[in-house]
């Protein structure tokens, strides 16, 4: 069997930390090979070694049987290795073509031959079914399109082997399906693909083989056809993982959150939450299902005071919290796991320990007479880090240096520890691996069992169906149906989310 890439016994050490411990990865020509591992397992390190960003401390890399030394990304490019980064490297104000040729501009008499380049880009785009307009500005195209531009960039430079670094993390479900088609088209044309991911569903759907790594060690390489998600998850995490979270039936009691006739406009003055009504009771998890952009973000920002609402009423345990300041709402007993943990959830340049008191720093015991008590702050931080299994070198490490899953666990620890009456979790597991997802779901259910009200917003149907006790479907700023997760199906929810069954559902609920 011919391998296009062989990484044999690759070892990479940072200080005392062994990021890659003799990992072997062999890529066949024309296959889609998944590299599966938890956050921080060493996937990115291994790929950065292949792409020439890191130099291995041991092992050998072979390209088409030839032993090579990849000193920098230019060498990788010359060897036909291209990387589609998770965070796009595009110039917003340039066109698609300008971005693609950046760094290797074709010239004609000293001028950039943009016409020729556009033609080439168009041909490539058509050949692989990418449907990218070569003359569009990056700022004007969707995230999914931008990713295709990244793919075109590697193809334009003659890549034979494409590395996709968590490509679906930023995409909507439709875009993910389109990407899968593109990847299939690429291998049909003879390209080989390494897909870095921790999403088992995608692997089962698109990959031929999968290499699992755990804590820097290569665990196994399997044919996808011979395995199943349960086995992969167990290999990745190192223990059995439950996909269906066990939970007792909910025992809802009094109403904690009551929203009536809420109207919210976004920054452009468009009504995005439209006379919305919703109640969440103590001891239940209400999941909001909906396609992104149907008012979920604005609804949560209005409840938490981050966005001023136009009209309506919001009661928390009977107390009016409509358009109060975020601090008053927090003090009234609302915990909020924000959708964007980097934007809202953390001050990334602060130590993780100081992030643990982001809403309580001014209270005793964390400060006294306006002076911070660092001992109390870091005692609390150590307690939460231990309790919520936040993996960090120490509590003084900047939050920026933690992996996404650990940042999220820190935020959840902080919010849960404040013991709020209402816990709002927006996309709490976005971008996390199965181990962390399981942990977070358990914590949400634990809150419910302690008699708290939990409001969950997620774009992942599995998550909403799995965790919620009631599902509220949001469409164009309105709750169009309330369904019981035990009695509904993905198909029904999908239709409701698309607004098509609005009338009947409204009657049946």
């Amino acid at each position, binding site marked *: 069997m011919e391998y296009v890439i062989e990484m044999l016994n690759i070892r990479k050490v940072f200080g005392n930390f062994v990021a890659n411990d003799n990992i072997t990865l062999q890529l066949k020509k024309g296959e889609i090979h998944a590299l599966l591992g938890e956050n921080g397992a060493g996937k990115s390190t291994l790929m950065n070694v292949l792409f020439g960003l890191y130099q291995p401390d041991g092992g050998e890399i072979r390209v088409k049987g030839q032993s090579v030394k990849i000193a920098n990304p230019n060498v990788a490019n010359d060897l036909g290795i291209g990387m589609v980064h998770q965070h796009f490297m595009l110039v917003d104000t340039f066109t698609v073509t300008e971005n693609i040729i950046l760094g290797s501009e074709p010239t004609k008499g000293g001028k950039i031959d943009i016409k020729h380049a556009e033609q080439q880009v168009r041909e490539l785009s058509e050949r692989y079914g990418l449907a990218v307009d070569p003359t569009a500005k990056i700022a004007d195209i969707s995230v999914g399109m931008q990713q295709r531009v990244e793919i075109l960039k590697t193809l334009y430079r003659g890549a034979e082997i494409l590395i996709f670094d968590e490509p679906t993390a930023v995409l909507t479900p439709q875009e993910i399906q389109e990407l899968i088609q593109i990847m299939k088209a690429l291998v049909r044309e003879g390209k080989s693909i390494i897909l870095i991911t921790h999403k088992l569903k995608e692997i089962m759907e698109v990959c031929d083989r999968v290499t699992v790594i755990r804590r820097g060690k290569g665990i196994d390489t399997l044919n996808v056809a011979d395995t199943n998600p349960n086995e992969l998850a167990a290999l990745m995490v190192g223990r059995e993982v439950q996909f269906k979270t066990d939970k007792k039936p909910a025992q809802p009691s009094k109403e904690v959150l009551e929203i009536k006739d809420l109207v919210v406009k976004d920054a452009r003055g468009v009504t995005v939450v439209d006379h919305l009504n919703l109640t969440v009771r103590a001891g239940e998890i209400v999941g909001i299902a909906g396609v992104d952009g149907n008012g979920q973000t604005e609804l949560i920002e209005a409840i938490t005071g981050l966005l001023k609402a136009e009209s309506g009423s919001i009661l928390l345990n009977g107390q009016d919290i409509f358009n109060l*300041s975020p601090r008053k709402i927090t003090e009234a007993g609302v915990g909020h796991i924000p959708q964007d943990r980097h*934007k*809202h959830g953390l*001050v990334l340049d602060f130590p993780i320990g100081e992030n643990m008191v982001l809403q309580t*720093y001014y209270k005793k015991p964390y400060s006294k007479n306006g*002076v*911070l008590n660092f001992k109390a702050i870091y005692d609390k931080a150590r307690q939460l880090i231990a309790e919520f299994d936040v993996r960090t070198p120490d509590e003084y490490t900047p939050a920026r240096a933690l992996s996404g899953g650990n940042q999220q666990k820190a935020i959840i620890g902080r919010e849960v520890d404040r013991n709020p009456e209402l816990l709002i979790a927006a996309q709490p597991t976005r971008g996390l691996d199965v181990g962390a997802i399981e942990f977070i779901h358990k914590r949400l259910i634990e809150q419910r069992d302690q008699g708290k009200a939990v409001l969950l917003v997620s774009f992942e149907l599995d998550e909403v169906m799995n965790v919620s006790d009631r599902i509220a479907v949001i469409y164009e700023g309105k709750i169009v149906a309330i369904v019981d997760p035990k009695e509904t199906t993905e198909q029904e929810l999908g239709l409701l989310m698309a607004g098509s069954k609005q009338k009947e559902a409204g009657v049946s609920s």
Partner: protein
Amino acid sequence: MNSSRLTKFLIPVFAVLLGVIAGSIVMLVSGYNPIAGYSALLYGSFGDSYYIGETIRQTTPYILAGLAVAFAFRTGLFNIGVEGQLIVGWLASVWVGVSLDLPKVIHLPLAILAAAAAGALWAFIPGFLKARFKVHEVIITIMMNYIALHVTNAIIRSVLSDKGFKSETVHPSASLQSEFLQSITDYSTLHYGIIISLIGAIIMWFLLEKTAKGYELRAVGFNQHASQYAGMNVPRNIILSMVISGAFAGVAGAMEGLGTFGNISVKAGFTGIGFDGIAVALIGSNNAFGIILSALLFGALKVGALEMPSSADVPTELVDIVIALIIFFVASSYLIRLLLSRFKKEGK
């Protein structure tokens, strides 16, 4: 973590060294003797007690101006208006110093507080505009500098003097000048202001690093969205940050008004101290202790430069070139980081 702190400290040190080396090349090329030039510079800044006194005196306003820039910077704001805030602080301190008659224990603190209040007020305007209307503070503070310059000149002519060019001297009860400090430094112009600026550095450190308010200000500086999420009042913190920054700048002006000069005279142009404060803060890594050191460097360079024409025939402008080169090397700290990592690798 320790090694990154060391690097932080080493970058300015290396920048200074590189600046000095590059400066000697400039001297050589223009036909001057760099060794004579630098020895004159060194002698002129630390050579005897008089020069030491002068250097410390020059360092005093630099510390406070550097603190003013750094405080704003640490909270996410770029206060270019330190110069103007310093000038209005200077005016306010002298005004209080000449127009009131009070016991020293009240008069002197009152004059300094007046300077702080004036600087704070001057910085409040751009802070408010930024917080309320999102007007960029750099634009407003630059313009406020010119307003400060010309308004103070008008007040000196029309109120503090009878169409003259300078105010009266402040009353002894509001003066920072010290016969004792002058006598131990061979009658330099050294005054008690240095103590005030060192206290200022301690205040800045304590306020930012140790208090709940400082935590809030730093959080807003790093991430306004997270601060809003955490329940902090972002606009109010922006204004407060500018006000505190301006207060430091105003006190820097008081050092000149109550200490060095004892009066205020009509200015043809800016003092430059406020602008140099930006460089002081940069070289001091926006850290209170670092600012004391970098202000001392600036004070020494400025005072020592005066000695260069007479004893080494090197023009004083050369010191400005050296300072500019040091700033250049700090700003291009990437280069120094690269050099440092090379050294470290070879060390292994």
